[in-house]
């Protein structure tokens, strides 16, 4: 039999690795070693550790490797295999979600708002296991406008007024009284006389002006009676043990304020909103998550490090920037690199007016002027090795 290593020896050995391999690998190695420590000799321990370090260093990217180009290709090629226009209905007759290539383009373009904003709202310990409690919160979040609960709108030519007929059933369902509706309309139409007659809202006009009538009718229909702005529809679904609320429309800031919402897990597919509410690191994580989910949903497997690089480039200045003219490519330092991308003449002219200088440090500039590019073998600078030279001289 051999000498079994002690726990102290293991932890001493691991301490030596501090700074050489990442923490996550180190902790995994640690727990694995602990599992088999009864069968471990010192020699075996050393060999395992050596192999792990070797394997890790092997996986690192070498200096001067074109990681950006590789990332672009690794995301672009699977992109060609994606469905061009998919409007997917998640589940049975539910929300319309942009997926596939259009969604991926949306993410890298860092659009202000996705074409189908959606939220996933998780609930706290108290509300998450009860369908009724979850529904209560869902109803509180869903926005209801006058248009949603009105039956029809009529123009009363005799009395110079606009009449909105409210639907009793719809009002009861969402727990709204005609009085609430009246008050909300009064608030948003300050200079109009508004009154309530049974289930009718009467808005008095000064004159019969079709354009003005139309404007007022539109405006009154959009008056929000309850709920959160931007949340058009909600749906409660059971996910494993708990109930989760899905929404059509997104308003992270307001939803997080709602009591009963688990603000740690609640999220949205609107990256700009995440940036605004939770900060740039959260936005970076959101870009990675959204891009990864979009690719995976299409059955494509892209190494997460390519996506992480894209997210890093988009967020490294502290704000989410798009990949393109108005973002990453348009803000390059080099004049020639910017001119090579789009709107060449304008870039050159404006750079000329500003008296910009180009230091030819990037790849594109050097391709343009016909020099060796600072990438791969081109980024290597050779010198004489004093060490080898001395040895050669000594040995003759």
């Amino acid at each position, binding site marked *: 039999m051999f000498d079994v290593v002690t*726990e102290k020896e293991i*932890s001493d050995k*691991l*301490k030596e*690795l*501090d*700074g*050489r*391999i*990442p*923490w996550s690998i*180190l*902790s995994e190695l*640690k727990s694995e070693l602990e599992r088999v420590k009864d069968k471990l000799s010192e020699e075996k321990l050393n060999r395992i550790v050596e192999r792990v370090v070797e394997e890790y260093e092997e996986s690192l990217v*070498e*200096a*001067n*490797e074109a990681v950006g180009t590789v990332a672009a290709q690794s995301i672009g090629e699977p992109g060609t295999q994606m469905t061009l226009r998919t409007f997917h209905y998640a589940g049975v007759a539910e929300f319309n979600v942009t997926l596939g290539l259009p969604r991926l383009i949306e993410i890298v373009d860092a659009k202000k708002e996705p074409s189908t904003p959606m939220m996933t709202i998780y609930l706290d310990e108290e509300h998450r296991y009860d369908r009724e409690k979850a529904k209560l919160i869902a109803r509180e979040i869903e926005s209801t406008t006058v248009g949603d609960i009105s039956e029809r709108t009529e123009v009363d030519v005799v009395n110079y007024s606009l009449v909105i007929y409210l639907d009793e059933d719809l009002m009861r369902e969402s727990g709204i009284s005609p009085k609430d509706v009246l008050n909300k309309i009064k608030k948003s139409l300050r200079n109009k006389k508004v009154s309530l007659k049974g289930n009718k809202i009467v808005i008095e006009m000064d004159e019969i002006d079709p354009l003005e009538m139309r404007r007022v009718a539109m405006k009154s229909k959009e008056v929000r009676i309850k709920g959160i702005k931007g949340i058009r529809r909600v749906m409660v679904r059971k996910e494993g043990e708990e109930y989760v609320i899905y929404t059509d429309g997104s308003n992270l800031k307001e939803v997080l304020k709602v009591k009963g919402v688990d603000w740690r897990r609640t999220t949205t597919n609107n990256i700009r909103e995440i940036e605004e509410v939770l900060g740039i690191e959260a936005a970076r994580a959101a870009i990675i998550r959204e891009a990864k989910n979009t690719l995976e949903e299409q059955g494509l497997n892209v190494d997460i490090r390519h996506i992480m690089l894209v997210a890093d480039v988009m967020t490294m200045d502290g704000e989410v920037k798009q990949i393109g003219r108005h973002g990453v490519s348009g803000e390059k330092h080099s004049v020639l690199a910017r001119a090579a991308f789009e709107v060449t003449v304008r870039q050159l002219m404006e750079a000329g007016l500003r008296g910009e200088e180009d230091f030819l440090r990037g790849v594109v500039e050097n391709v343009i002027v016909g020099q060796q590019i600072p990438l*791969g*073998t081109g*980024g*290597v*600078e*050779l*010198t*004489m*090795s004093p*060490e*080898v*030279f001395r040895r*050669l001289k000594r040995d003759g």
Partner: protein
Amino acid sequence: MALSSSISPQSKIFRGVPLGKDRNESRKYTRFEKARIIGARALQLAMGAPPLLEIPEGMSDPIEIALYEFENGAIPITVVRKYPSGRKELV
């Protein structure tokens, strides 16, 4: 448990300290550096420089000779690595 005390998230690797200097392991050339060194030496040989070592019988291709010299550590060429901080070091 013991892990958190021995390896902390404050360790060098997370602080962004270059791992170069205090790592007592001989650093390797990247594949690009290797290619440049062998390429430079092969060019010298092709232009008539005498080989630094006794060349095995039948070896005549300059690239092959350069590779042979490289593997035996005889090429007196190395690489300057420049870091964004401005620090330079020889490999």
